[in-house]
């Protein structure tokens, strides 16, 4: 279960706050996965005291975009912290998809990749297994040209136009041993882009969850 609580002293109304919270949620908390299981209790609540004073912030106010950025940033930090603290996790995985047909399509592909048990276990094992990444992208149910996909692990390009690229395995191993692993996918179809976060899958995940109730 994830629970989130946002507080602010900005003067903002409930309606504007609700619209912003939904937007922030879609870009942050709804873009993380640890184990693919959606809880019965997930909840995110925001409270705005207004005690900072000043002009009421509405979407029409010139400072609204700065306020919105702050709320989205706070939600993103918390969402990434949840992903990094996934049960048994040793690494944060960030999947950035670009070149999709739409942002929604990119989001679906990014979340499918970051939720793949095979991708997650490969990251745990520091295996630069691009095959599992493109396979996950291809089964996401979104438009994809199987001949134009580029995949990089951080700075290391492993696939160009869906064909394997020779890369330094030692450099890839060193990169995958880091605390954060970036998986960068360019579909070269359109302008859609999205980022999703998750964690590696480890033996400890099973240990923790095999006896959670008892």
């Amino acid at each position: 279960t994830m629970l989130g609580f946002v507080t602010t002293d900005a003067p903002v109304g409930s309606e504007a706050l609700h619209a912003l919270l939904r937007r922030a949620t879609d870009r942050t908390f709804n873009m993380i996965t640890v184990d693919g299981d959606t809880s019965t209790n997930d909840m995110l609540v925001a409270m705005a005291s207004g005690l900072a004073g000043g002009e009421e912030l509405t979407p029409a106010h010139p400072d609204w975009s700065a306020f919105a950025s702050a709320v989205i940033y706070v939600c993103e930090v918390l969402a990434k912290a949840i992903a990094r603290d996934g049960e048994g996790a040793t690494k944060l995985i960030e999947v950035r998809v670009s070149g999709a047909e739409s942002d929604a399509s990119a989001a679906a592909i990014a979340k499918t990749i970051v939720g793949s048990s095979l991708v997650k276990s490969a990251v745990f094992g520091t295996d630069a297994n691009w095959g599992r990444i493109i396979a996950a992208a291809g089964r996401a149910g979104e438009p994809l040209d199987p001949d134009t996909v580029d995949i990089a692990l951080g700075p290391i390009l492993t696939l160009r136009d869906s064909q394997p690229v020779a890369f330094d395995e030692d450099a890839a191993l060193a990169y995958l041993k880091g605390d954060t692993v970036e998986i960068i996918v360019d579909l070269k179809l359109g302008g859609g882009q999205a980022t999703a976060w998750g964690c590696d899958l480890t033996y400890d995940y099973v240990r923790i969850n095999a006896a959670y109730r008892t």
Partner: protein
Amino acid sequence: SASSASSAQGHPAAAFTVVEDGSVTTPAGFRAGGLHCGLKKTDRHDLGAILCEVPAAAAAVYTTNKVQAAPLQATRESLAAGGRLRAMLVNSGNANACTGKQGLADAYEMRAAFAAAAGVPLEQVAVASTGVIGEALKMDRVRSGIAQLPARLKAGAEGADDFCQAILTTDLVKKSVCVSLQAGGRTVHVAGAAKGSGMIHPNMA
């Protein structure tokens, strides 16, 4: 803490500043705290609250899982009553999910008991639970904790830290962040706290 480990990369650089020692109690008007009431087998905090000194404009999103825990219904009703909250009460160690009519009654009782203890209107209290599914809340322990909680709420970092501890389940670290920015002619703060480690694939709306 999450705040010290994160940067503002990808966000407008000049829009806000990370407050390194900030928390949910940094924005004006908020107190928070937590205590151990006996829901967890360990002696760690398992009941916490955030209290606002004025009725705060409020909003929430909830899991879209068709099976939803009882506290979500109580919180929805609070927000529907006027869109303002004075308090957020949370317990860990028990999800109060799949607990039937008794679970719903327990969620409403938590809301009413904290409203009375904190001296705020019933419809301005939200409740949340996290932990094991399918077990009844030990309400004698919850009642006792709620009675003590208002006196434990503090405006500083200590209160926020206690709250962050109280909401954890299998989490290894507390999750907290705070930023400040200039907006509407004043310095305003936006802060957050969260918990989450397993059963994580949120789809909230």
